[in-house]
């Protein structure tokens, strides 16, 4: 064990390997927890989709597939920049690491920015659940399938806002951590024996992307086949 790794091993670990393995396992367990957290929402989604297929198909048709699709690409790209940031950190390429993290952050903000406009247009179309909710079939942004009730459609939009909102909240937390990592990287904190924080954050960021990869088809693409 070289000196450079000894200095970053916390007092209660025997060696660097034990420390990194513990950190990785801890992150996996945290993500397992996250899966169950979102799992509750997905379970609710499934139950109501079974119960009200027409409302789900109609609601899905009202979502903006172009903006949603664009955001999907943005998030996948941010996963690429994040993965390359991890690689740069491993190799000690600090300059590229900083740029990789900044690119990831910018893409994250682009996603949130687009999401903001999507929410705004739902608000203007009275599709935000609450006392002002009114689905106007005549002026709807998409076709109406079957005969869903206002209540059932409201249920769809409840889940739409809660699921994407919970996802956006994870993005915002992620962006906060990213800013912190960028500051650390600029101060020269990371080197090939000390890059666990980057690696662990990569796990988290990819996880948040994967959640979106499930949300996008479940919410936007329900009735777009054939």
């Amino acid at each position, binding site marked *: 064990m070289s000196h450079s790794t000894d200095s970053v091993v916390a007092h209660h670990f025997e060696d660097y390997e034990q420390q990194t393995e*513990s950190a990785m396992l801890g992150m996996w367990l945290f993500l397992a927890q996250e899966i*169950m957290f*979102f799992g509750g929402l997905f379970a609710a989604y499934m139950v109501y989709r079974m119960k009200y297929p027409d409302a789900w198909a109609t609601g899905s048709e009202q979502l903006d597939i172009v903006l949603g699709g664009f955001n999907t690409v943005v998030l996948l790209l941010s996963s690429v920049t994040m993965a390359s940031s991890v690689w740069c950190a491993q190799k000690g390429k600090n300059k590229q690491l900083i740029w990789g993290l900044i690119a990831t952050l910018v893409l994250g903000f682009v996603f949130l920015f687009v999401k903001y406009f999507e929410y705004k247009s739902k608000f203007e179309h009275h599709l935000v*659940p609450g006392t002002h909710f009114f689905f106007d079939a005549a002026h709807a942004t998409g076709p109406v399938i079957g005969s869903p009730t206002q209540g059932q459609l409201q249920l769809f939009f409840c889940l739409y806002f809660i699921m994407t909102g919970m996802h956006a909240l994870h993005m915002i937390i992620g962006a906060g951590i990213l800013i912190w990592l960028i500051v650390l990287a600029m101060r020269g904190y990371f080197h090939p024996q000390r890059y666990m924080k980057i690696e662990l954050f990569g796990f988290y960021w990819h996880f948040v992307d994967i959640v979106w990869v499930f949300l996008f088809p479940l919410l936007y693409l329900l009735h777009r086949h054939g």
Partner: protein
Amino acid sequence: MSSITLTPDIAPAVMPKSHYANVRTTVMSWLFTVDHKRIAILYLISITVFFAVGGLFASLIRIELLTPKGDFMTGDTYNKVFTLHGVIMIFFFLIPSVPATLGNFALPIMIGAKDLAFPKINLLSWWLYMLGGVLAVVVLLRGGLETGWTFYPPYSTTFATSQVTIAILAAFLAGFSSIFTGLNFIVTVHKMRAPGMTWFRMPLFVWAHYATSIIQILGTPVVAITLVLVAIERVWGVGIFNPQIGGDPILFQHLFWFYSHPAVYVMILPGMGVVSEVIPCFSRKRIFGYEFIAFSSMAIAIIGFLVWGHHLYVSTQSTYAGMVFSLLTFLVAVPSAIKVFNWTATMYKGEITFEAPMIYALGFIGLFLVGGLTGLVLASMANDIHFHDTYFVVAHFHYVMVGGMVMAYMCGLHFWWPKMTGRMYPGLLATIAAILVFVGFNFTFFPQFILGFLGMPRRYHSYVEEFQILNIMSTMGASVLGLGYGMQPFYLLWSLFKGEPAGDNPWRAKGLEWQVPSPPPTFNFPDGRPVVIEDPYAYTIDVKEADSVAQH
């Protein structure tokens, strides 16, 4: 026959000069400590406070139920009292009780580690718990909560007039504190074991916590998001459990019990772990069927995830689903019974002594047995139609939660107290308290089985006159129980100052934690990382003979 082997016991024990609790003494050094032992003490103090508050509400319930009429408080107040009793006892006492105090203290030492894998996350757990606890107090001060601890909508979302949202936030924070404790334990068990500490040399206490942690990580987030959904519905005025727009309140019950049934195993498995340590020690015998006990903990954790529907037999759940849930619930009884049989077999032909921890352990076995078997009565669908929402259910879960977990917690507390503090408590007083708790408990809750059988519904502040005698019995029992609990702070605090120094190993127990000084130094093992060469239950018959010599 000689007393030579006893020399270490005869030499008077002295307190080590420097140990984890006195290396630094400022308040900040405690509030921001990352030492698992100090965090355990922080938890110990906090859960004791909440136990007292929860107990206070319990006594208010028992006072109200002395008379058939609701004359001590209004129905509304009564609803708040039993709700706060439940919320505080479950989220702020039972769930953290053994894992966050005794587990936090002993688990790392038991496997030969200097600390848990993530000391800062451990501290974060305590802070989240305290934040939740403060919010619970805010709920109390701002007029309470009347939804029952289960937060069922549409009552909780639409009709309740109390502090539901803050209470949900409190439970949410306590939940994440519990998740982080579980995460820490699993990583510690996987990655921090000392050389020679193989999986099957781990104390069963550690196995029990490993199984508990799985539930904490996979179950708690589900109730967290479910409670968030309730809070959103309450704040936003519209949400997914709202039947007016086609939402389904039964979905809440499914999501809630998906966690809250496994959560009862979070509230019992660690207790089983405690008992698995204490029984062999005070029987001077190797634990019987080690692997069976270890795997039964895992089996309980896994099957426990598949039984939640037994709370919905009368909530429009399909009969066929109910039959499956009933069968699976019966299956959980198998690993539970395996444990009881193995503890009994461990005691068979052992040299049993009746120190306070052992009395609690024996009490645990008996009361858990009653609690477990009446669980089978409730798991039968036809019976449940009669027993649902009666005092039979109340008695059943108090036998498991109080007769089981609280007994086990006190068992462990008395077992590891000399290790945590370096001092012995007065054995006679502790024994008297243990007996009072056991007797008082049975007088409190056995009448409630009969009341439930006769059909007395739970959660009402008045009842028909025929039930008064049994209710008076129950309240009298509760007074004895309260006396037993109330004695403990006095003699335990007394022991802190005046107790005999305990020495490294007052019980002549075998686990690693008994080979370090009492109290241990900050990094647990003063002579460096231990190498483990035997299992933690290597009690031998020689020790037993030496014992009998010592006593005569």
